[in-house]
Structures are given as structure tokens and as C-alpha cells.
């Protein structure tokens, strides 16, 4: 049974806390729940800082301080200059999602879609009074933990005494050169969290599996679906009985290692929130992998080393798989591949144990039994070696020329900083950028002048605009909501009309710190009816297949569930004021007039009138129905779809006669 909510206005709102399209953080208020969708951490802010060298770097420590045009050098301790760019000499800081737009302690649940989109979690769960639950799949949590652990490790192992804050002063920031001058909300930038905070945040996560239905307060149901982008990555369905919101974040239709994307379940959504598309829509991942391999081979053949700044999980698995097939054909079998990360070992091992989250091909390998990823064989044959850090075993094993995979892709912290300093001076070496999150030119800025070759092969397997337009045609949501960046071509390629979302009706766009009222009205609500009440109903068939019954009941609402209960029996008035007062609340249960249904066929009605002696009848059509005019009797009968009025001058007899005539054409029950 459903309740029609005739005049209820839209009460669904989306609070947009992050402006970064691939690191989203949005809060959805839906029915009575407050749901945070992802909490991505924008790390591009770290590009404004000097790199943290693992080994003392004379070059970095001797960079000149920056002074204002008038020679004022009061900032020279905080800001350093390198090849015309100015950097903050301090512990790197991150740009957090908005915390002021909505009281984050009211958030009931956080839904995580993939491990890249949970990096701000400790900031939210530990510092905002958050008391709710976080939902994520197991690989997301495990690999997310690795990413956080690596981040904390990279930053904590290079303690920096100095913490610059002077430059953040609004009046001073105005005087700084770009891009520091244009950096947004620098006052809210925060240092990295601690491992303790990470552990506490992760303890609030509840693990879920694909297609598992999770009830939230009886009001809505949330379900994660495979999104095909990374191990355990998910899209989410948030639905009530009559409304469905799909949240698509970081999805891929390419055949890489994860389980393929579940598109079918996204059908029939009222609203589809679309985030996490490819950041490099013009680069085809296949072409980029080819480019990566060719450049790697060319460098190594010439005796140079290759540096690949990367995250410890994700694309690296696919790259290693490509290299596994490629190295023999390219004559690179003797070249060592090193993977250096505090979590390298766990990452390589985790990837092999999450069989149920892998694509079909890899799943079948497990039953052979073989490791799903061929990097196991690379490790076994000593072609790939992994180390937690460049200190220790690595320094004794290290052999050149070689290929090194290490973090962090921003080139601001992690072992990569050391290799940039070590290899940057020789043009034989090459750094190949594969992660699309950071502008490679900005990442390289503090290393200039640089002799080593730089190749940009961003590999982003997330949906491109062609795939999105196919997806939208397939799943046909009523409304699409997306970051504003997706509703126009990229600024550098304003003519590329193909690089934007093209759908009907046009997508609603959001930007950081904006609140969107989502465009749909809740019209129905499901109501349960108690069995004993149902028993008492006597339906009457008014048309073949349609029966009606009147119900008198009490509507009981609790925990977003609505139940019709039998009305309390009218108690005998036994006196006593209290009782009487209580019975006032009881609905009036006296026998009601019968309900009418059906429509009045005007021609037959006129005939009936004539038969009953009315003459001089005129019928006029109106916008809503008809007016039957009995000119002699000076009486008007207004017949409309849901009402009939008999207007006559104080002739009750006539009115009753006419009423009875009208009633003959209607059904009663």
C-alpha cells in the first residue's frame, strides 16, 4: 500500500564538499538520512611545497630564500626559490574537504567507493564529532590502509622542524607569485594524520560485499556494485521504496584486473551522481601502455635507468603484467625491476589473495591453482624485487641500469625524491609518469634544471566521455548530477565538444561548497497494513479487476516505517473526565456517507432529464467538463471530472430530484 505525498517538496539535497572531480566528497540528505559519499583528499596542494629528501640534499638545502620585489626578505625562511618557482619550505599539507558547509557530526554513514577516495577519512572521523558508520569493501579497506600507511610513513620518517604559516596570511598571500597566490583556502590546509588516527578511522569501517543490501534506519537501503576500476571498487545504489539514487564514482569498462563493472543495476535511477571520470580524456590507456613500454626499453637499452613514480597499488599491477609479457620480447630479461615502498610486499601479496574481487580470467587461475597476477613469477625469477625502503637490503642489491617503481607520484616525499636527485643529472635516465593525479610539469618544478628525459604516459582507466554517453543511454537516469568540470570542454581544448557530458535533460553541475536541491519530488511512501485491519476490509469490485474498500485506521509512524493499525474501539463512556478526554482523540467512527465513483455520461443524463420532464436543456462544454443548463427552471448543473454541482435558487425539492438523477449514474460503496 502506498501513501501519496501530494504536496511534499523536494527534500533531497547534495552538499558538495570537494571541488576535485576524481577525489569527491559529497553529502546526500535523503529522506531522514545523511550520507557522505566518499571522502577524497586533494593532495595537489603538496606541489607547492619543497620535496622531503630522504638523504640530505645539498641542492635543496642551498636553495635561495624568496624575497618580495622591494627586497623585503621576511619570508625567506618559509619560501625558497628554484628555477623561477617559489616553494614553501615546510612539512607538506593537504587540502581537506569543506568542513563548514554542513555539521559533519550529523553524518550517519560514509560510503567509500575505492581506496583512492578514502584518504581524507581520518580527518572526518576523528575531528568532526562523527559517530556514524563507514561502509567499504574489504580490498578497499586493506589497500586504503596501505596507501595511508605509506603516506604517513613517507612524511613521518623525514621529520621537519619547520612549519611555515606566515605565508598563509591573506595579506601576505596576495603578494606571492603564482601558483601560491591563487591557492584556495590555504588556512584550512592540514598536515598529515598519524597512524593512530588512521587505525581509529579504519576501525569505524564495516565491510560489505558487492550487491549486499544494507538498511539504513529503515528509511533507505544502500548497495555497493562492482565498478571495474580497482580491486574492490564500487558504485553505490541508494534507494527507498519509490526513489533510487545511483552514485557512480571511479568506474572502468576496460578489461584490467578488477571485476567488470555492473551497469545493469544502475538502471531506472531518478538521480545519477557521476564523478571520477578519466582525468586524461584524450589519452587512450592502451596507447599509453605501449608508449610506456617503448620508452622504458629504449632507455634501458642505452644504459639508462627508468624511474616510475607511482602508488603502491592499482595501475602498477597492470604495468607489471604488461612488462611480464614484454620484457622477453624486448630483450630486457636481464634488467632488474625494483619496487620500493614501505607497503610493497603487502601490496603485491594482497593483490594475489582477493581472488573473488578479480576479473573472471584471473579468478579461474586461482582454481588451477596459479597466482592470478604474473608478478608472482617475476618475483620468483628474481626479475622483480621489492624493498620497504632504499635503506637496507636495496643498497647492496642495487644494480644499474634498472627500472624503479616507487612513490610518491607528487615527487614531494617518498623514495622517489632520492632517485630524482640521483638520476636527474644524466640524460641517459628517464622518468616516466603514469599516474594522472598530478601535473608532471608542476611535479618536476623543484628539480629543475633537469637533464633526465621526462615522458608523460598517464594511464587512467576510468570512464571517458564516449563510454559515459553510452552508459547514460543504457541506464537512462532521469537526472544526472556531476562536477562542473564535466559540463564543458577542458579549458585548454575548448573546441572539443566531445570532451563533456552530453545528456538530456542537461546534467546539473556542482562545485565546491555548493548545495544542490536535487530535482525530484517524493510522491509515494510505502505503508503496511496490519492483518486484522486487512481482514476487516470488504472490497467491492467497481470495474473488472479493480476493487475498492474504505479504510478507517490510525497511521502509525516510527523509524521511517508507516503502519495502518485498526482504530481503537470506542470505549463506553463510563464517566471520568480523563477517559472522555482520551476518546476525543479517537477518529470519528460513525457511519459515513457512501463513496461515489464513475463518470456521468452527459448525453444519457440529458435524456434522463428529458424523460423526467425537464425541457429546454442546453449543454455547454467547458475546459473541465460540461454545464447543463435547465433554462426554464433557472438551474445549472456543473459536471466536472471530480465534482458535480447543482446550482438552483432555493428549490431544495428540485435539487434533491436532480441529485438523485445524478446519483443514478454513479456507483456507490
Amino acid at each position, binding site marked *: 500500500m502506498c501513501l501519496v505525498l501530494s504536496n511534499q517538496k523536494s527534500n533531497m539535497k547534495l552538499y558538495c564538499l570537494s571541488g576535485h572531480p576524481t577525489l569527491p566528497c559529497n553529502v546526500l540528505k535523503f529522506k531522514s538520512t545523511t550520507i557522505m559519499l566518499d571522502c577524497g583528499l586533494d593532495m595537489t596542494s603538496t606541489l607547492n611545497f619543497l620535496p622531503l629528501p630522504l638523504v640530505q640534499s645539498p641542492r635543496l638545502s642551498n636553495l635561495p630564500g624568496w624575497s618580495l620585489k622591494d627586497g623585503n626578505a621576511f619570508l625567506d625562511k618559509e619560501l625558497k626559490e628554484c628555477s623561477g618557482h617559489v616553494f614553501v619550505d615546510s612539512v607538506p599539507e593537504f587540502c581537506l574537504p569543506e568542513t563548514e558547509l554542513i555539521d559533519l557530526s550529523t553524518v550517519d554513514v560514509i560510503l567509500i567507493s575505492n581506496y583512492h577516495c578514502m584518504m581524507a577519512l581520518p580527518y572526518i572521523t576523528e575531528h568532526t564529532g562523527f559517530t556514524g558508520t563507514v561502509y567499504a569493501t574489504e580490498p578497499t579497506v586493506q589497500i586504503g590502509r596501505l596507501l595511508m600507511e605509506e603516506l604517513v610513513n613517507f612524511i613521518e620518517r623525514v621529520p621537519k622542524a619547520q612549519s611555515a604559516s606566515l605565508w598563509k596570511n591573506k595579506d601576505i598571500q596576495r603578494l606571492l607569485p603564482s601558483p601560491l597566490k591563487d591557492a584556495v583556502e590555504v588556512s584550512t590546509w592540514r598536515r598529515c594524520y598519524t597512524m593512530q588516527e588512521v587505525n581509529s578511522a579504519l576501525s569505524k569501517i564495516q565491510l560489505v560485499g558487492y550487491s549486499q543490501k544494507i538498511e539504513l534506519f529503515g528509511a533507505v537501503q544502500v548497495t555497493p556494485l562492482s565498478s571495474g576500476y580497482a580491486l574492490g571498487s564500487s558504485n553505490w545504489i541508494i534507494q527507498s521504496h519509490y526513489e533510487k539514487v545511483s552514485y557512480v564514482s571511479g568506474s572502468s569498462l576496460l578489461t584490467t584486473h578488477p571485476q567488470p563493472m555492473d551497469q545493469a543495476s544502475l538502471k531506472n535511477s531518478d538521480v545519477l551522481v557521476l564523478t571520477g571520470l578519466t582525468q586524461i580524456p584524450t589519452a587512450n590507456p592502451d596507447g599509453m*601502455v605501449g608508449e610506456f613500454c617503448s620508452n622504458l626499453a629504449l632507455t634501458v637499452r642505452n644504459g639508462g635507468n627508468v624511474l616510475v613514480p607511482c602508488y603502491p597499488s592499482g595501475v602498477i599491477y597492470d604495468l607489471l603484467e604488461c612488462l611480464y609479457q614484454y620484457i622477453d620480447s624486448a630483450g630486457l630479461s636481464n634488467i632488474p625491476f625494483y619496487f620500493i615502498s614501505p607497503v610493497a610486499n603487502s601490496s603485491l601479496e594482497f593483490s594475489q589473495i582477493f581472488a573473488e574481487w578479480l576479473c573472471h580470467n584471473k579468478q579461474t587461475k586461482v582454481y588451477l591453482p596459479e597466482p592470478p597476477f604474473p608478478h608472482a613469477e617475476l618475483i620468483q625469477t628474481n626479475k622483480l624485487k621489492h624493498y620497504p625502503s632504499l635503506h637496507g637490503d636495496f643498497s647492496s642489491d642495487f644494480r644499474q641500469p634498472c627500472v624503479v617503481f616507487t612513490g610518491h607520484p607528487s615527487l614531494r616525499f617518498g623514495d622517489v625524491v632520492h632517485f630524482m636527485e640521483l638520476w636527474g643529472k644524466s640524460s641517459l635516465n628517464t622518468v616516466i609518469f603514469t599516474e594522472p593525479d598530478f601535473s608532471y610539469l608542476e611535479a618536476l618544478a623543484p628539480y629543475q634544471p633537469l637533464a633526465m628525459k621526462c615522458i608523460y604516459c598517464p594511464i587512467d582507466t576510468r570512464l571517458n566521455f564516449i563510454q559515459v554517453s553510452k552508459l547514460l543511454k543504457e541506464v537512462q537516469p532521469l537526472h544526472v548530477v556531476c562536477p562542473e568540470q564535466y559540463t564543458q570542454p577542458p579549458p585548454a581544448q575548448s573546441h572539443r565538444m566531445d570532451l563533456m557530458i552530453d545528456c538530456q535533460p542537461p546534467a546539473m553541475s556542482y562545485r565546491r561548497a555548493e548545495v544542490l536541491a536535487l530535482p525530484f519530488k517524493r510522491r509515494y511512501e510505502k505503508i503496511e497494513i496490519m492483518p486484522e485491519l486487512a481482514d476487516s476490509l470488504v472490497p467491492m469490485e467497481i470495474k473488472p479487476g479493480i476493487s475498492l474498500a474504505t479504510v478507517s485506521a490510525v497511521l502509525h509512524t516510527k523509524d521511517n516505517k508507516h503502519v495502518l493499525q485498526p482504530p481503537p474501539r470506542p470505549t463506553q463512556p463510563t464517566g471520568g473526565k480523563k477517559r472522555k478526554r482520551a476518546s476525543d482523540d479517537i477518529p470519528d467512527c460513525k457511519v459515513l456517507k457512501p463513496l461515489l465513483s464513475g463518470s456521468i455520461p452527459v448525453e444519457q443524463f440529458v435524456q434522463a432529464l428529458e424523460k423526467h420532464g425537464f425541457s429546454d436543456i442546453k449543454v455547454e462544454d467547458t475546459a473541465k467538463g460540461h454545464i447543463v443548463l435547465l433554462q426554464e427552471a433557472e438551474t445549472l448543473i456543473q459536471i466536472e471530472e471530480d465534482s458535480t454541482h447543482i446550482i438552483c435558487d432555493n428549490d431544495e425539492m428540485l435539487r434533491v430530484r436532480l441529485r438523485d438523477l445524478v446519483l443514478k449514474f454513479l456507483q456507490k460503496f
Partner: protein
Amino acid sequence: MDPECSQLLPALCSVLADPRQPVADDTCLEKLLDWFKTITEAGSSLLLLQENPCLLGLLCHMLKPQDLSPRVLAFSLRLAGMLAAQEDCFQYLQQGELLPRLFGEAGPLGGAAWTAPSVRSGWIQGLRSLARHPSALCFLADCGAVDTIFSLQGDSSLFVASAAGQLLVHILGLSLQGPAEGHPGLQTGDWPVCAQKIVSHIEESLRSAATPQITQALNVLTTTFGHCHSPWTQVLWVRLSPLVACLLEKDPVPAAHSLVDLLLSVARSPVLSSSSCGLWETLAQTLSHLSPTQAGPLALGILKLQECPQALRAQAFAVLLQPLTCVLEATAQAPGLLDSLDGTGGASVTVDTLLPSKAACVGLLCRTLAHLELLQPLPQRPSPWPQAPLLGATVTILRLCSGSATPTSDAGGHLCAFLVGCVRVQRAALDFLGTLSQGTGPRELVTQVFAVLLEYLTSPDSSPTVLKKAFQATFRWLQSSPETPGCSDLDPHAQLFLRELLPVLPKRLCSPCWEVRDSGLEFLTQMIGRWGGQAGFRRALLASEVPELTEQLLRDPESYVRASAVAATGQLSSQGLRVTPASPEHPGGQQKSLLAELLHILSTDSEGFPRRAVMHVFTQWLRDGHADVAGDTERFVARVLQVASQDLDWEVRAQGLELALVFLEQTLGRPSSHCPYAVTPPVAAPPSPLAQALRPLCRVQLFEFAFRALFDCDRPVAQKSCDLLLFLRAQTASYSGPQGSGNVPEVASVEAALQRWQAGDQGQPLGYLEPEVVVAVLRSMDLEGLRGALAESSDRVEKSPQSLLQDMLATVGALGEDEADCY
């Protein structure tokens, strides 16, 4: 018919007539019909029937109501038609009322067998064979066959429907052969009844509102005008052309594709195109009425016509160019380019109408580019040929596809969105761009061509097939770029381009995609072949990593790539462009010689392609007197022949014979008469100049190789060897040395060994042979006879009609087991 076959035929006929005996398959019956066809074409069908009454028996048997297989029924109908093609036999069969009962209402036409398409097809083909003489026409009229054929035009089986149409054309032609041929002025009203009936049917179909019927009529007319050029076709066209013109007034034009075919067929007919029956006007009208996609093939057809009014050609060319004009317009190219493409004053069409959706846009552009590519090399192509605008448009399309064009208009933006990353258009445009290299263009446009080619060669997004086309187009453009006066080196612009291209090539040679490595190597081989001797090219190539990488690809895991690497390395080495071994950067020191490496590939590579490539390189080296070979040619040839003779791939062995032939020619020298000015090497003094000359051939064991090849199980190898030995025998015949008769026992033993080889036992080698023995063996062998035997196809025995009949009988067990031909 030979007596053996005559003997087998009755048994076969009874097998065919027996519904319980399954017939082998359709191919047997087809072969049987082919055989009957050759017999009836060569002699009298009547005689055939009289000598083999079983055939008539088979045909009569078909008339009995029974459960016959549709195959046999169809076969019998076709056989009957084939026999009745001769008028006397037709009359003979008519006597027994056999034909009307087979082809008329009483035959399979009314029965259940008619539901099988093969029976309907057999019926049509039978009639088609039968309709050769005037009596047949009367027969067709009497049995009402024409009406059945009309209905079969719409048959559910496309084969039947198409055959029905062709039969109508055939009957029309036959009925008009006599009367109308004699009187070209005869109007259709005076035509024979049968012809009139067909024409009325066509008219009715053309007036019909149903597109399938119109299509059928148009197809019949297309075939008629395409095959028959008698004067009556003109009368027919004059009568029907108004109806055809009426089709153009409908919107959309029905059966446009067939209409285009018809009009082109009319225009190609020498009878019709020369007359003034409004054909050109109709064509012009059609061009303007059809949609751009439909008009393209018509425009191309018109432009291919030898004779055609200039105005119509101009109109057709404008239609063909419309999509490209649109592209230029939408991307706001220089107005000069646009004018020359749109000079005909046709209403300008916008992108929105011409290229409305991605699918339409891609399809139309691909077709247009393909049409223009076909047109470009033709002598009757439009003149002046708008080379510059075409180049401009093609470059623009390629830029739109790669996303590097920056259109300013909305239409351009849409076009860009349609075309970005579209591999089909990229391939078509690169093909056409390559074709355009045959003409010249303004310098700045040529610069743009090279720029867009470089963009494609560099882009990581170019798919392997696109890249291959880009390489091909690049080579064609480099080839056509003007040479520097004085020396035949590349012109400075091309050199500049090469300097940018060569750094790209190593990356392509390292690609993880083998197709890319392969097309990179093919391109390189072409380039070295063309410019390997030019200083500028040599400098640029040697300064790059290309030669070294090419050599590394000899060990590529993909056999195609290895083969291409072999060819490229062979070229590099021939041109002295190989990297010098043992440089200080390669502390490995001793680099294996290329010859040894190629020999290693020849003897060990598991795939045929690289081994074939090695043989090609070796043959070329021997021909050119390559330094590695010239040092010790005999040892080289001996080694190669030894390895090649054991190869499992027949092409390698055949190429070995090619190499042997080169060596032979070099050793014996061409006959002096061919080259009067050549310095004749002084003929060695007696006792035996022949022996002297043949000795090197004996030392490299060329004869052992050639004799072995003579009995090779692969015919091309044996044929080649036979040719080589015949050539050798001719060469030795001119020598007048002693005939080597002193060594008779050895000759006999060689001959015995060769006989064993021929019998399949090739185990025992011949060992070293004296020249005299070789000459004697050669002279005693029937090489001409062997060549004749080899020239016949290998299945000549199995193809004989006797074998066919035996086979068919054997499959149903009608022959004794011991007689079965089990080849």
C-alpha cells in the same frame, strides 16, 4: 562418352532414382552436370540419350509421385534442360510429353518438393538451359512458365529470386533475337507476345508502390542493358524511361541503389548512351534527387564513363566532393580552397544535413574518400583535378580525427566530436592521402601533409592499422618529393622531415604491439631500398638507434617481425649501414657476423616466414656480390643449399633453387650471344672445359639439391627444379667436350639412385658427382616429359568422370569393396 562410363551410368541412374539411397553430396551432382555439359557441348544430346536409355529412365522416374530427394529432383530438372537445349533432342523429349510434365503444372511445381529452394533453383536453371531455340519459347508460353518466373522474382531464397530475374532477361533476349533484330524500328507493340508480357510486367512493377517489386524490375532492366546491346534495347528504354523518371518524383526515391545501377548500366551501354533518349537529363535529375549517400556511387559511375557531357561530369564531381566541401566549410579553411571545390554553383549543403550523425558522417566520409581514391589514377578523371583542396580537406579530416584541429564554428565542433579517434576514417583518409602523392601541391600544403603524417607516426593513440597506413602514405610522399638537382638525394624539406621521423622509429620498433614493430620494419626496408645509397639519408640513419634495434629484432618472439627484421637487416647490410661491431660501449666484443646469425635463423627458426626471408636475403646478396658472400661464395652456397634442402617449408626449398640458379648463372655465365660486349672469360684449356666449368657446381652439391627437389612432394619445387635442370642442360649442350662416356657404371648407379628417389626413398645421398656423370645423367633424363607431367594438375586422375562415377557408387556401396577408389 567412353565405354567405362557408359557401363557405370545405369547403376548410377538407378541409385539416383532410388529414394532409399542417400546421394553423396551436392558437389558430386554438380560435377556430374559439368561432365554432361561438356558432353552435350561437344556432341549430340539426342545421341547421348539414345545410347544411354538409363538417362531417359531417370528423367521419367522423376514424374512418379514418390519421396524423392530435392537434390536429385533439382539435378534431373537441370539435366533435362541441358539436354533439351538442342532442338532435335527437345523435340524428342517433347514426344514423350516429358518436358511439360517436368516443368509444367503437373511437375514438381505443384508438389511438396517445390518448397525446397534447390528444386525451385533447379527448375529455373533447367529452363534457362532449355531456352535456346524458338520451339522453347512456344513451350514456355504453353506451360505458363513466365508467370511462375514472375512470382519467383520475389522468392524467399535470394539465389532463386536472382536466377528468376536473369531468366526473364534471357527469355526477353531470346524472344527478340529474331524479329526485332531484323527490324530495329519495330515498336514494342509489334514485339512477340512473350516479350510484350515481360515488358508489361516490368511496367506494372515500376508503377507499383511496393519497393521490392520496383527493385525486381530495376534489376531485370539493369541486367538486360548490361548484357544485351541490340537495337531493341533502345526501344525498350524509350518506352520505360518515363516510368523510371517517375520514380525520382517520389520522396524518398524507392530502390535508390538499384536505380543507380540501372542508370549506370544504361549509360555504359553503347547503344543507349549514344542516342538522345534523355539519359543525361535523367542522370542529372537523379544526382540532385538522391541523398548524398546514395548519390555517391552514381557520381563515381558517371565520372568513370568514357563519354559523358561536361556539365554532367561537373555536377557529379560536385556531388562527390560535397562531404569534403562540408568539412572545409565547417573548419573555416582558406576561402581559396573552398571555391575550387565548390565551383559548380551547387546549393551549398551544411554539415547538419549532410553529416547529421556520427554513423552517417563516418560512413559518408569513408565512401567519399574511397571513391576519390578510385578516381584519382583514371585517365578520365575530372580535369582540372582539385589537388590542393583535396589535400587540404584530407589533412583537415586527419586532424579532426586526431583531435588536433581547432574548429571555430559549432559545425566544426560537431564534426570534431564525430571524428575524434575514428579509426575507419583515419585509414580511409591515409589511403587517399597516399594516392594524392601522385600529384603535386603547394609547398605549404605539402608541409602540412608531412606534419600530419608525423603527428600520426608519433601519436601513442594511433592504432596499429592506422600506423601501418601512415607509414605507407609517408613512404609514398617521400618518394614523390622532388629530388635535389644534381644528386638524387632527398630534397631539404624531406630531409628535415626525416630528421624528425628517425627518432620516432626506434620507439615504434620497441612497441609492445607486434604489428607496429612489423610495419616499422617494413617501412625501414622500403626506405633503405630507395635511399640507402644517399649520403643524407645514410648520415641520419647511422646517427640513430635504428640499425642496432633492427638487428635486435632478429630475435623477436613474433615470427612476422623476425621475418621483417631479416629483410631489413639484409638491406642494411647490403647498403653498408650495419652498426660496426665491438665498439667500446659494447664490451661484449666479438659480435656474431650477420651471415652466421642469418644461417642460424635458417637452420633453427621454428617458423617458416623468417626462414623464407633469410633465403630471399641470401639470394639477393649472392646476386649483388655482397662482401660477406663474395669472400667464399662456394662455401656460402654449399651451406645454404644444405640447410635449405632439409627445410620443411616448400617455399624455402623453392627459394633455394632460385639461389642455385643465380649461382649457376654466375658460374657458367650467360650465353655470350646475349651479351656481345661482355668480357668472355677465357675458356679453360682442354682436356675438359665443361668439367672445369661444372666443377664448382659439383663442389657445392648443387646437383644433389636439384635432383632431390625434382622429386619433391610439392609440385612448385619440382617444377622449378625441372626448369633449372633444363636450363643447365641447354647450357651444357653448347659445350663440346668429351661426353663423359668413360664413367658408365657411375652414371648407372646415379640413375638407379634417382629412380629410388622418385619412388619415395630419398634416404641415400648421391655423394660427390663428377661433372661428366652429371652431364650424362642430365642427357639421359626425360626432363621434358617430367615437366609435362608436372604441368598437369595433381588431381587429374581423380578428376576423371570415371572416377567420379565410381566414387558416387562407392559411397552408396553399389560397387564391390575391392573396386572402390580410395584415394
